[in-house]
Every structure is written in C-alpha cells, then in structure tokens.
C-alpha cells in the first residue's frame, strides 16, 4: 500500500533550507541511493539515442551519473558532463556505466552558470528541479538549462516528480479537489542497516528529503516563464521569421511513471 507523504513547510532562506533538507541528505545516503538507481528511463534513453554523434551535453543534477554512459548502443558518440551538488554522488558517478571509461564531473549548482553561454548541444535535468524550494528557483534552474545550450538548435529534456504517482509508487501525495499547483512534501528515505551488521539492534535510519511534487501543467508553465524571462518566444520556428528572432519549441510534454517531462528545442531565425 502506498503511504501518504508528509506535507512540508518551506521557511527561512531557501538555500539553507535546501542544504539541510536535500544536499546533506544525498551526501549521506549516496551509496545506498545509487544502488537503487541504475535503470535509465526509456524516454530519456530514447532522447539521447537520437542525438547526433559529436554532441556534448550537460546533465544538471546527475546524481550517480546513470545517464552519462548513454547511448548504450553507440558508446562514446556523445559526451555528457555531469554536474551535482553532492560530492559523494559524484564520486560514485565517476565510474558510471561500469566500463573503464571515466566520466567528466563537476561539483556545481544548477542555479549557477559556470559554463560559457550556449556551449552545449543538449542538456538534461532529471529528477532535480523538484528539489528546489521556491518557484522562482525552479524557474531559474530552467533558465540555466536554456542558457547552457546552443540558441540555434540546443535541445533540453527535463523530468520532475508528479503528484500523480503510478500504481508501482510507494508513496501517495495527499490532495483534495482540483490540483493546479504542486505540493511541498517530505519523502522518507529508509536506509537499511548494513547486511553484515553484527549488532541485532542495528536501526533503520530514516532521512526526509524535500520535494516539490509537480501538478499537471505546472512544468510547462515554469518553462514558459523561464522563456519569458530570457525573452524567448514559445512555439514552432516561424517561417520567414525576422532575423535574430529566438525561441523554444515544446517538442513533447507528458507524464511517464510518476513523472512529468518536457522536451524543448531552441531556435533562432537566420
């Protein structure tokens, strides 16, 4: 039976709140967390499979780096550089993919901008933006992705957890009525005692992580605000558009296995 998650009250400085309720916890649970995260989501794998050889991308919030070794059927045709706030997860991500290939990793913040503008061909941010504790910060994270990729053709894929969880989910978000805004919740991470623990009273430890669970349509609304802040139009490339007009097209937008996702493509009239 899925359990209701507890609602969270975000207060104080959002940076400090996220440090206490997200970053510290990932550093503590890194190795157990990583052992449960190995299967790439089909839509993400498919997105990466279809990118041209020679493209370089950013994985903002890479965690244990499970997307860095894709596409699996033509390894080395893309280079995805992983960025995360958790040094302990990055240490695990170094070996992601299990081959002898080491991954490229950067300790960094998805709200900051440590890349030359438009340097990447693509960017992905999977299960990351939902850990930011204000709407303003969630929008800023999307802006950073759009700034990191080429304004002419850059591709972006974003995944966040949805209020609407599927039947396999271990959790349920308590809601009432028509849900139009997301919910701030605490999701427990139960750390099992080590299997070889000699002590009989080895306790399970529970770590509560902050999540903003997205409502339907919310991700797309944030994308539109991020585009607006960067003075980008939202829509298909206009035919015979005026030179220099810039925008993003929403290529796909949907729900998959308890997550909302959106895929964007940048364009510029030339």
């Amino acid at each position: 039976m899925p359990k209701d998650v507890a609602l969270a009250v975000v207060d104080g400085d959002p940076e400090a709140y996220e440090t206490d309720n997200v970053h510290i916890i990932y550093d503590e649970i890194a190795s157990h967390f990583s052992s449960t995260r190995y299967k790439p989501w089909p839509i993400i794998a498919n997105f990466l499979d279809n990118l041209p050889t020679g493209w370089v991308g950013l994985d903002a919030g890479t965690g244990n780096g499970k997307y860095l070794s894709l596409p699996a059927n033509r390894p080395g045709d893309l280079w995805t550089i992983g960025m995360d706030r958790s040094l302990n997860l990055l240490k695990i991500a170094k070996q992601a993919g299990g081959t002898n290939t080491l991954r490229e990793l950067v300790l960094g913040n998805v709200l900051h901008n440590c890349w030359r503008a438009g340097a990447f061909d693509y960017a992905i941010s999977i299960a990351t933006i939902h850990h930011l504790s204000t709407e303003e910060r969630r929008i800023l994270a999307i802006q950073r992705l759009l700034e990191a990729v080429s304004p002419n053709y850059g591709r972006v894929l974003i995944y966040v957890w949805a209020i609407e969880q599927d039947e396999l989910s271990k959790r349920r978000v308590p809601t009432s009525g028509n849900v139009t805004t997301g919910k701030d919740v605490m999701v427990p991470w139960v750390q099992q005692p080590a299997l070889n623990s000699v002590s009989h009273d080895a306790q399970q430890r529970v770590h509560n992580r902050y999540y903003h669970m997205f409502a339907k349509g919310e991700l797309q609304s944030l994308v539109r605000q991020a585009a607006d802040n960067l003075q980008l139009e939202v829509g298909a490339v206009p035919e015979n558009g005026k030179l220099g007009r810039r925008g993003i097209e929403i290529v796909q937008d949907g729900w998959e296995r308890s997550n909302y996702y959106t895929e964007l493509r940048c364009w510029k009239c030339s």
Partner: protein
Amino acid sequence: MVRLITHNLLACHVKGCTSNNFPLQFQDVSIEIREAEFNPDFLRGFIPKIEWKALVDTARQLGDTSLPLEPPEMLDDEFLKNLHHVLLEVHVEEGAMICPNCNHRYPISNGIPNMLLAEHEIA
C-alpha cells in the same frame, strides 16, 4: 575529472565577471594520462564547437604542443589522434583553475573541479 573537453566549456561565473572570464588558467596541477577509446566520428562532430585558441593555449601550458594554432582543413588520422589525446586522455587530478579576469580560484580535488560559489558571489 577535468579533462580539456570540460575545461573548454567552463567559464568563471562570479558576480560581475562577464568578460575575459574564459578560459580558466590551470595552476599547480598534477596530471594523469589515461588511455581512452579513440572515436574519430565524435571528434569530427565536436570540432566546430571547440574554442580552438583556448584549447591549444591550455594544452601548451600543460606541455602538449601537438595541436596546430588553427584547426586544419584536412582532418587526417594523425591530427585526430593528437586531438583525442589532448581532449580525452589528459586528466587534471589536483590543482586549481584561476579566472583570468577576477582571479577567483576554483579548486580541483580527486579530478573533480569545485565550481560552487557562495550566494553573495553570484550575479
């Protein structure tokens, strides 16, 4: 890891540091060379996006003079192998990267660069 492929994409992001903030300058580095699988198709696709001068200058600072000052018209195997080595086989394990404009120091430890800044250092 900080290989030159990543170094070629990083820029300083300290508040107000918006010009001459690339490329970051390596300082006190220790380097390891590790073989990587040669993929000429990847390199051909990536070449147009490289900031070439930054790559060549940085490679020379690290003691590798195999790359020409301008990318060649003909991408022969010898050139591609040199480029492969510079981009993907030279690992900067320890040291730092310094912004040429504001002198901010980004430390590198165990091959992972720390690009975090405090909130007040951010634009």
